């Protein structure tokens, strides 16, 4: 169990999250992808805190906790926006929400 194990897992999670964000046709699926990305980040923080710093220094974990909090806030706002969009457009498919279309 080296640092690279964790980093590889994290990279895979990150890639999957990106893939979800790019391809899913549902705003909530996209949110899930974002959550995957955030998780991979937090995992990286924890892994680096474990391997790259002295055992007493757990700043990386605290940053990860902050990341979780931010993810919670982000999820709340995201869902609120999704609700507003749904009310406005009757859909949460991002390709149908294209008011910005040129």
């Amino acid at each position, binding site marked *: 169990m080296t640092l690279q194990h964790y980093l590889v897992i994290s*990279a895979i999670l990150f890639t999957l999250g990106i893939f979800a964000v*790019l*391809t899913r046709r549902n705003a909530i699926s996209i949110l899930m992808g974002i959550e995957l990305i955030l998780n991979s980040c*937090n995992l990286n923080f924890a892994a680096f805190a474990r391997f790259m710093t002295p055992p007493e220094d757990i700043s990386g974990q605290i940053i990860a906790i*902050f990341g979780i909090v931010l*993810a919670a806030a982000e999820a709340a706002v995201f869902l609120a926006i999704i609700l507003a969009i749904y009310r406005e457009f009757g859909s949460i498919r991002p390709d149908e929400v294209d008011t910005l279309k040129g």
Partner: protein
Amino acid sequence: MEFTLRTFIFYGFALTTIASALVVVTVRNIVHAAFSLMVTLFGVAGLYVFLQADFLAATQVIVYVGGILVLILFGVMMTSGRLEMRIHIERGQLLLGGVVALALLMLLLTVIANTPAWKNLTDDGTELPPTTERIGELILNGPFLLPFEVVSVLLLVALIGATLISRKEVRDE
């Protein structure tokens, strides 16, 4: 690296995490995706345990599984009205997204493999003291007090904002 139970369990968690994440991004039923995400989050929590971040693992389970996931399920129900909503995926988009994601993955793996500072850092398995007390000290009586307060204000603002945005009726004024 000898193949111990510990290693076995680690790989188990890792594979579970990756596999369930794969399900999240591929499965067509959004409710299934949500439950699969729950498995992923649990897996990540397990990895935290392997990193000896006990408080972080607990927080992950409580906040993510108990909070965010429920929030997501609520969102699904409120916007679709039915639980088995199908997710449409276009082939072209799938292909392009896959290419980009794979390229990204290759990039990341190359970076991970080629960064000298990250090599040969092995978890020797030494037990570290529980982190909860120290985290509490660092956050409430240490250098992270200010970020903590800022984050709490941010959380408050996000909650109020979310309430405001998702309100059903906007007043005439």
